[in-house]
C-alpha cells in the first residue's frame, strides 16, 4: 500500500497491534443540562478504563511479567544469592554445565555460573537499553512526525522518501552496519536503535498529525493568529500523545527484540561476561546440541517472556485507548 495507512511496513510483528479494530460504540455520557460534575465525569472515564484494563487477563498477565522483570532489574539480589559473575561452588568445587538441580535451579553454564542468577541479572541491561532507546526514538519521532506532518511540503516529501528508504532495510541489518562502523558502546547502541526506530515512529505520528491538521480546530488556531510552534505543540501534540504512548509501548517491545538480537550476534557493548540474555543465548546455544539445553533455553524464554509481557500490555493499552 502506498498511502499513509496504518499498515506497518517493517518487520515489526507488534505493529499489528495498531491495526484497526472495529470501534466499540461506547457511549460516553454527555452532560448537557443534566447536573454532572465535570471532574467526577473525567474520573469516571478513567476509572472505567482502569477497570477495563484490570479485567483484561492479557493485561494482567503482561503487567505481572513486567513487574517481575523490573524488580529483577532493580534489585537482583532479592532473588538470588549468586552474583552474575560468580561460579556456583558445591563443597568448594565448581560444577560447570550441570542441569537444573536444587543448588542451581536453572543449572549452570559453561563456566559454572548459576543460570538462574544470570537470568535475574540479565533483566537490567536489556531493559535499560531498550527503554532508553524507545523513549528517545518516540520523542524524536514524535517531534519529527509533528513537524513534517504539520508543514508538509517539500521537507515532508524528502523526509518521507528517506523514511521509506530506511524502512526498506531490516532494522537489524542497518544496526549491524552502524555498529560495525561506529564501534559498540552502550551509547552508540542506544542511539543506533533509537535512530533506526525514528522512521517508523515518525510515520505513525505523521499520519496521526495529518489527520489532526485537517481538523478545523487547527484552522481555527491559525485564524486567530497562532504561530506554527504553538499550533504544533499546544494544539496538535496533546491530541497525538495517545498514539505516541501506544507507539512507545510497541517500540519498547521491538527494542527488546532488537537489543536481544544484537547481543545474540555479539554486537553489544560493555563487559562480555556480564549477564545479558541475548549474549548468554548466543554463547550457550551451541551446547544445546550436546543436550545441555538449560543454559540457552532459559535466556531464550526470558527474552520471549519479556517481549510477550510488553506486547500484551501494549495491546491492552491500545485496545483501551481505542474504546
Amino acid at each position: 500500500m502506498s498511502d499513509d495507512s496504518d499498515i506497518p511496513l517493517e518487520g515489526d510483528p507488534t505493529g499489528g497491534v495498531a491495526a484497526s479494530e472495529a470501534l466499540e460504540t461506547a457511549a460516553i455520557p454527555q452532560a448537557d443540562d443534566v447536573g454532572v460534575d465535570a471532574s467526577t465525569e473525567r474520573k469516571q472515564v478513567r476509572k472505567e478504563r482502569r477497570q477495563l484494563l484490570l479485567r483484561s487477563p492479557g493485561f494482567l498477565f503482561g503487567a505481572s511479567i513486567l513487574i517481575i522483570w523490573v524488580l529483577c532489574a532493580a534489585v537482583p539480589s532479592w532473588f538470588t544469592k549468586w552474583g552474575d559473575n560468580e561460579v556456583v561452588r558445591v563443597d568448594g568445587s565448581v560444577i560447570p554445565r550441570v542441569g537444573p538441580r536444587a543448588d542451581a535451579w536453572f543449572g549452570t553454564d559453561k563456566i559454572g555460573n548459576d543460570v538462574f542468577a544470570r537470568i535475574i541479572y540479565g533483566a537490567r541491561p536489556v531493559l535499560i537499553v531498550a527503554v532508553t532507546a524507545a523513549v528517545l526514538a518516540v520523542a524524536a519521532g514524535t517531534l519529527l512526525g509533528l513537524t513534517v506532518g504539520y508543514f508538509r511540503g517539500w521537507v515532508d516529501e524528502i523526509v518521507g522518501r528517506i523514511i521509506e528508504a530506511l524502512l526498506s532495510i531490516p532494522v537489524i541489518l542497518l544496526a549491524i552496519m552502524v555498529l560495525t562502523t561506529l564501534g559498540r558502546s552502550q551509547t552508540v547502541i542506544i542511539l543506533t536503535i533509537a535512530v533506526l526506530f525514528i522512521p517508523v515512529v515518525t510515520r505513525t505520528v505523521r499520519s496521526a498529525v495529518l489527520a489532526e491538521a485537517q481538523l478545523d480546530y487547527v484552522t481555527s488556531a491559525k485564524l486567530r493568529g497562532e504561530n506554527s510552534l504553538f499550533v504544533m505543540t499546544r494544539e496538535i501534540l496533546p491530541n497525538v500523545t495517545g498514539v505516541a504512548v501506544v507507539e512507545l509501548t510497541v517500540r519498547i517491545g521491538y527494542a527488546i527484540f532488537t537489543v536481544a538480537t544484537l547481543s545474540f550476534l555479539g554486537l553489544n557493548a560493555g563487559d562480555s561476561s556480564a549477564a545479558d540474555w541475548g549474549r548468554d543465548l548466543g554463547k550457550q546455544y551451541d551446547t544445546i546440541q550436546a543436550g545441555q539445553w538449560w543454559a540457552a533455553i532459559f535466556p531464550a524464554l526470558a527474552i520471549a517472556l519479556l517481549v510477550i509481557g510488553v506486547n500484551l500490555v501494549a495491546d491492552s493499552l491500545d485496545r483501551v485507548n481505542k474504546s
Partner: protein
Amino acid sequence: SDDEPSGGGGDTSAGGTTPPATEPAGGGDTTPPPPPSSGGGVVWANQQGDANSGLDPVNMLDLGTYNVCSQSFEYLVGLGPDGNIAATALATDWSPNADGSEWTFNLRPGVKWQDGSDFTSADVAATMDRLAAAGNAGLGGVIEEGAVDASDPLVAKFTLIEANGNFPVLVSIFNAQSLIAPADYSSGTTLNERPAGTGAWILDSFDVATSTAKFNRNPNWWGGTTPLDTIELRGFADIGTAVTAMASREVDGVQQFSVIGGEGLLNDGNFTVLEPPASNHRQLWFNWQQGQFAGDEARLVRQAMAWCWDREQMLSTLFNGRGKIANDHPILDSLPFYDPDIVPQRSRDIDMAKSLLAEAGVDSVNANIESGDLQEIPQLAEIMKQNAAEAGINLTVNVQSNSTFYGDSWCPGPSESDPTLPCDNASEFGIVDYGHRPIPDIFLGSALATGGVWNSSNYANDEFDQKLSEYRTAVDVAGQKAAISRIQEIVWTDLPASYAYFYSFLSGHDSSVSGVEVTSLGHCILSGASKS
C-alpha cells in the same frame, strides 16, 4: 575461527625426542601399500575457512584452510606414525652440512603434478621464494628469497641465513603454509583457481559460500590408490553445529571439536576420538611497552595476577581436564630440554597476590581483557575475571570479532618509528591463541623475542634474545636445556605473558572409518582412510 598465531611453521625436532639432524629416510617406498580400495566417500566437518585468505596456501591462516589445501598439496616433510616428522611426503631424505647452515633435500622421484607435469626442485625453490616474500612466520629470518639451489631437478639445496638445527620442521607439515605448489603458481593464487597439487586428492569443487570442498581420488598419486573414491570437507562456521552434525552422523568425521559442547561425542561409543600431541595454549599477554602492566615497574602486579589464576578450575571447566597445567612459560613438560626444577609451579594463592599488590603499592587494578570470539577463550576470560576479582583486580571482558581482535587489539601493526615493536599499540592485556608446535621456537621467537612478528607484549629483553639464539643453534639436548632453563626462569619472572595451561587438540570420526591421521594443526590425512 582464525588461528593466526598458530599459523606459523613449527621448528625442529618433533616431539622433542628426535635429534634434529638426519633422519633415516627410506628411498621412495616409505608409504605402505594402501589396503584394497573399499571405495565410497566420507564427509568431514571442517572449520569454515577464513574467506579473507581464500585457499591460498601461502597466505592461509586457519585450520579449515590448512585442511583443505593439504589434501591436494603436500609438504616437503610429512607426518610420521609417532606424530613426529618423517619422510612420508615429497622429500625422501635430508641432511645438513657441518654447521647446520645448509640443508640438502632429496626429492621423491616420479612425483607428478595433478595436471601431468613433473614435480622438480624448481617448484620447491619457487614455493620457498614465495614463503620468504610473504614473511612466513616459521621461515622468516631463516631463509631469504633465492635460498634454494635447484640445479638438480631432484635435489633442493637450502642455504640458510644462519645455522638452524631444526630446519626440516620448518618445511614440514608443522609449518602449515609450507605446502609445495607449482613453480608458476604465484602468491595469491588459490587452490580452487588452479587445482594442481601433487597430493592424493584432486579438488573437484569448492563452494565459497559454505567453504565446502569436494575431492576426487588422484589416480596418479605417487602413494598409490586411496581406498576412498571421494572426500568432502564441509565447512562449518561454528564448532557447535559441526558437533551436532557429527552427533547425528550427517558427517563421518569432525576436524576439531572442543570439550565444551563436545561431551556428547566424548561419551559416544561409536565415535573414535583422536588426540594428537599438542602444545596448544593460550597466551595471556601483558603489554611490556605501555599501559599499566608495562615494564619492570609493574612486574609485581603481573605476578599478582598470575597467582590469581585457578589453573585447575580452568582446565577442568574448559577442557574436562584434557590438557596440562602450565607454569607461565610456553615450554611443554614433555620436551627433553624442559627443566622441571627451575621455577616453582604457580597455583592460585590470593594472599600472595594481595601481598604482591601491596608490595607494588597498588590498591586496585582495573583493566580490560581483550579477546577474540574463539573457542573457549571468552569463557577463559570470564574465569580469569572471576579469579582475579578476589584479589581486588577488576577485569572487564571484552570479546570482539576475531578480525577486530587480531587487527586492533592483538597486533595492530608495526611501529613506524621503532621496528622492534611489530605489534605497536597492542592492548595492555589480552588472550591470544597458539596452536600446536612440536617445538617452542615460534612461541619464543615470534611471540616473545625482540621484534618478533607476533610479539604482542612488545617484550624486549636482551638476555632472553641471547638465550633463544643459544637454544636455536645448539646441537644437543644439553645445550638446548641450558638455554631453555634460563628462558623458563626469565619468562616466569618477567611475565611478559602468563601461560595457564596446554590443552589437547580433539578430533575424531565415526568408528566405521579407519586409517585417519590428524595433526594438532587441523590436518586430517585421509589418503589412507577407509570406511566400512
